[in-house]
């Protein structure tokens, strides 16, 4: 089902979702960046805000004359909602005879995630495979490995996903660090959303093409009684997204990337990059697929209540690879950067049969040293098998 909509129709869509109890979240402007937060109307979205993104740099600017949706991946990803930075797994109270686990106080309200770009929709589907979530409302194409291998479903993640109504936005112009088309993660959205919005270009007022991918999406469009889209609207929407895909400023050649990185585990580039890498972990925090967490147990001072927390962790911290009994298996910056990048682009394929990178470019933008994963992969490919200049060549250079 495909329809066309004006700004007022989006307001009605928001009101419809609110009337069915949904709490709405979307990209909005806060602290000079686009972040994901609670919203009440389409006017709360980062409308008319664009950005200049380069390695290690992000600047937001208002473009009052352009399309409504020209923002790109911001300082935040939907991971903040899908896998909260900190969550309580369980709590228990001491009793006379032992302890009693408290009923889960988890949120059960439905949520609507509005304004998810293609890369982020793909990231969500990748997290689905990590956490064993299979969406029975609208089965998405499963990963080759994940669908057959699900042995464990994360109940916290599944509960959030099961309650979520997702509205995607197909980008019609790429950001400065985007490369989703080269890793097959966007900007087209084919699955994972209930509704997919595409802003049609060259319109005096915001004008949208809306496609329903699920029965829930179809019901919403039917309730709004929107005008059906004609073939000319379908084509215009498709062309706009195709143009965006073709205009991506960066690309990552993923052909044979798993084998490339595995056989270049001792490439000289890892050490060269380690000299720049501050091991701050920013890339893991902003990455929409980095899912590593730490488990903490804590008790109150009186010893009456205990709880187990899960919070984001980063493979760039030394504690992350600290092994029981004492010892760290990735003590150097080189080992930690290599572990992160090779997990995204190689080991993720071993685990889930797909890439862990969706080409959103956040790790490039928010890296204080401006390390660019596309450049790193390209250099390793360019000098495949090379350990840099040989020790003998170096002598000739110096003499």
């Amino acid at each position, binding site marked *: 089902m495909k329809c066309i909509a004006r700004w007022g129709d989006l307001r009605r869509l928001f009101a419809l979702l609110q009337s069915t109890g949904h709490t709405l979240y979307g990209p909005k402007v806060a602290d000079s960046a686009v972040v994901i937060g609670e919203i009440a109307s389409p006017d709360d979205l980062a409308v008319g805000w664009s950005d200049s993104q380069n390695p290690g740099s992000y600047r937001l600017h208002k473009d009052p004359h352009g399309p409504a949706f020209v923002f790109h991946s911001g300082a935040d990803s939907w991971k903040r909602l899908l896998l909260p930075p900190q969550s309580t797994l369980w709590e228990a109270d001491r009793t006379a005879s032992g302890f009693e686990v408290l009923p889960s106080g988890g949120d059960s309200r439905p949520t609507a995630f509005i304004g998810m770009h293609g890369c982020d929709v793909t990231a969500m589907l990748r997290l689905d495979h990590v956490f064993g979530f299979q969406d029975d409302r609208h089965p998405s194409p499963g990963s080759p490995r994940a669908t057959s291998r699900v042995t464990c479903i994360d109940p916290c993640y599944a509960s959030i996903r099961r309650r979520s109504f997702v509205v995607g936005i197909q980008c019609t112009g790429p950001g400065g660090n985007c490369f989703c088309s080269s890793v097959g993660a966007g900007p087209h959205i084919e699955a994972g959303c209930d509704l997919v919005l595409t802003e049609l270009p060259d319109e005096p007022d915001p004008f949208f093409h809306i496609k329903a991918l699920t029965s829930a999406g179809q019901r919403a469009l039917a309730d709004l009684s929107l005008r059906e889209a004609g073939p000319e609207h379908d084509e215009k929407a498709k062309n706009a997204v195709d143009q965006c895909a073709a205009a991506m400023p960066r690309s990552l050649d993923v052909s044979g990337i798993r084998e490339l990185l595995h056989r270049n585990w001792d490439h000289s580039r890892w050490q060269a990059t380690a000299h720049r890498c501050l091991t701050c972990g920013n890339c893991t925090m902003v990455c929409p697929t980095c899912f590593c967490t730490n488990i903490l147990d804590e008790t109150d001072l009186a010893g009456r209540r205990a709880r187990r927390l899960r919070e984001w962790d980063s493979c760039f911290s030394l504690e992350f690879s600290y092994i029981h009994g004492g010892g760290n298996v990735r003590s150097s910056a080189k080992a930690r950067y290599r572990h992160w990048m090779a997990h995204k682009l190689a080991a993720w394929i071993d685990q889930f049969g797909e890439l862990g990178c969706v080409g959103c470019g956040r790790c490039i933008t928010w890296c204080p040293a401006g390390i660019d994963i596309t450049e790193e992969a390209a250099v390793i490919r360019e000098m495949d098998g090379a350990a840099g200049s040989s020790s003998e060549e170096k002598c000739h*250079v*110096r003499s």
Partner: protein
Amino acid sequence: MSALEQDLGALPFFAGLEPVYLRLIAECASPACYDPGESIFQQGGQADRFYIVGEGRVALEIFSSDRGILTIQTLASREVVGASWLFPPYIWQYDARALEFTRLLAFNAVCLRAACDQDHDLGYDLMKRFARLMVERLNAARFQLLDVYANPASGR
């Protein structure tokens, strides 16, 4: 006698070696340079070379799971790096890393081992030189263990 053979002969390690052997060893040598921090060889790798330091400094390191990277010895100009090439299974026991820009002479151990097998006089001579080196290093390590600079028993 080539300049390289003369240079090798002037090193304490090769002092008194027959000129014919000096020539043979020189034929197995090639220059190797490393940037500061660069790995020269890694523990567990194939020990197919040994080195003599020309300029710079080389740290022999060992990775301890609970204490990180520990430097067990630092070698400077005219010192020999690596003895694992002499004995099966020819595997490096330590890591070696350049601490500054380091120029080394690298000796192809595969070529030398074959020469030693062919000519036992050469093999015996080299074995004596490396055995002496290893005893010196062992003694140095024992003195380190004795903690000669501060006797723990004295409480200081």
